[in-house]
């Protein structure tokens, strides 16, 4: 792939549209990234954009869990840092009602002189369900890594990393665009992201069998709004058109069955599934929550490890077995230890 990859380029056509043009754009959107903040705001920040969400048992320590949220698929040229007006959240449902009972909230300082720091809070109960930045501070003044070497912050049973890393996602994007005619070309092999990685004791998740998702809240003109969310991979991309993507990003899991289940079922039927199978599969994706048993290392759909071939798994499901692989496998640059995301390119 790498020898045949084109240099990403911004269209010179935008120069004619009378709006600002990005002259040199490196990096690319990852797959699940066509999210906008809010049509009313008409503004969109790439560093609010969740590309992927991972949850897995810490290798070598069954008592801990690793949570990873990747954002900002084109660093550093479109966004050089995390958004200081955002709250990046890992949300955990412990009782199956699709409402967060525990939340880990990550906020960032203003980016100055090439530096930024993070604060991590843990909220429970009503605080967790809220849209504010409440919660007990568990990590403070953690430095963000903008270079090759990850700066890891330890605090009690927690470990934290935030910063530039190699994008772990693997997928033949052009094959997807070509109506699922894959050639095995990994579009994301040399791409980077901003990773937020949190190691937590399992007890801090609030239960052994939990449901998780990531989201980003953003403060704009005095209003705090949910601008992105992601539990399972590919759901928003595969099933929702542009307007629906926005609605999906703004939705809470508890709302999603009413809003999206019938629509996803219909889309699955369009993709070749029987009505019964389509309904069953749709219930796997809606609400968009990643289920995880802390005692298991099985991987997707029990959490999601970096190397899990979620694309192949989901392709087989949604196409009723007609397409079972994009012929692309995991990257080889994952680290064996925290923060697990590979060195940036």
């Amino acid at each position, binding site marked *: 792939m790498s020898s045949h990859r084109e240099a990403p380029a911004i269209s010179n056509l935008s120069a004619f549209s009378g709006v600002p043009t990005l002259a040199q754009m490196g990096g690319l959107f990852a797959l699940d990234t066509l999210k906008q903040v809010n049509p009313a705001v008409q503004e969109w920040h790439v*560093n609010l954009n969740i590309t992927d969400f991972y949850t897995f048992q810490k290798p070598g320590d069954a008592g801990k869990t690793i949570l990873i949220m990747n954002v900002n698929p084109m660093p550093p040229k*479109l966004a050089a840092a995390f958004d200081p007006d955002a709250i990046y959240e890992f949300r955990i449902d412990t009782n199956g009602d699709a409402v967060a009972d525990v939340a880990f909230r990550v906020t960032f300082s203003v980016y100055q002189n090439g530096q930024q720091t993070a604060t991590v809070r843990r909220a429970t109960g009503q605080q967790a369900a809220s849209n504010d930045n409440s919660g007990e501070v568990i990590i403070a003044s953690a430095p963000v890594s903008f270079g090759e070497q990850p700066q890891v912050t330890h605090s009690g049973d927690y470990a934290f990393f935030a910063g530039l890393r190699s994008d772990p996602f693997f997928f033949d994007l052009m094959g997807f*665009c070509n109506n699922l005619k894959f050639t095995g*070309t990994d579009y994301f092999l040399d791409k980077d992201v901003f990773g937020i990685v949190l190691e937590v004791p399992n007890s801090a998740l609030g239960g052994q069998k939990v449901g998780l998702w990531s989201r980003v809240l953003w403060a704009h003109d005095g209003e705090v709004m949910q601008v992105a969310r992601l539990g399972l991979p590919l759901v928003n991309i595969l099933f929702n058109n542009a307007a629906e993507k926005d609605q999906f990003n703004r939705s809470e899991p508890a709302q999603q069955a009413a809003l999206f289940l019938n629509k996803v079922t219909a889309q699955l039927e369009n993709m070749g599934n029987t009505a019964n199978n389509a309904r069953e599969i749709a219930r796997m994706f809606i609400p968009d929550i990643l289920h995880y048993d802390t005692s298991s290392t099985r991987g997707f759909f029990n959490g999601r490890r970096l190397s899990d071939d979620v694309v192949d798994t989901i392709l087989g499901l949604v196409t009723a077995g007609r397409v079972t692989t994009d012929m692309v496998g995991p990257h080889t640059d994952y680290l064996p230890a925290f923060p697990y995301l590979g060195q940036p390119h």
Partner: protein
Amino acid sequence: MNTLSRRRFLTLTGAGIVAVAAGGIALAVRQFSESANTLTFQAVSGLPAKPLISYASYVLTGKIDTSNGTGTITKYVYAGPPESMTSISLYTRTVRVTKASQQGGVWHITGVVENQAQLQKGEDAVLQLQLDSVRGIAQASFFGSPIALRLQHFTAP
């Protein structure tokens, strides 16, 4: 969703990206300096095609001197479906036109990808393009698959 510039990235880099909706691109093409023998066009299609949800937009733009069958066509894949296309290019190829002829009101254009080191597995080195301005359709291929694009702009001698 149809707002022209609803995606704007004015972040810490000071750089900006804006959505380039269909109308914006069509406007852009009209800016080409045109001579009596110049054919210009722009054609767009969503990728992947229905029944799948379009994730991206396949855009062909071209300017061809029909007197000698030369010119340039650029193939893009932009993030976002046609109705909410961004200016974020996921794929770009420049094609050197080698032949252009008209038959029955349809322009038949042949070209070759200039930098063939860019080509990926399954990707065509040669572009065969048909422009039917009456039907408002362009026929081309994407990674070997035939694809019909909607002509958003077309001027010809």
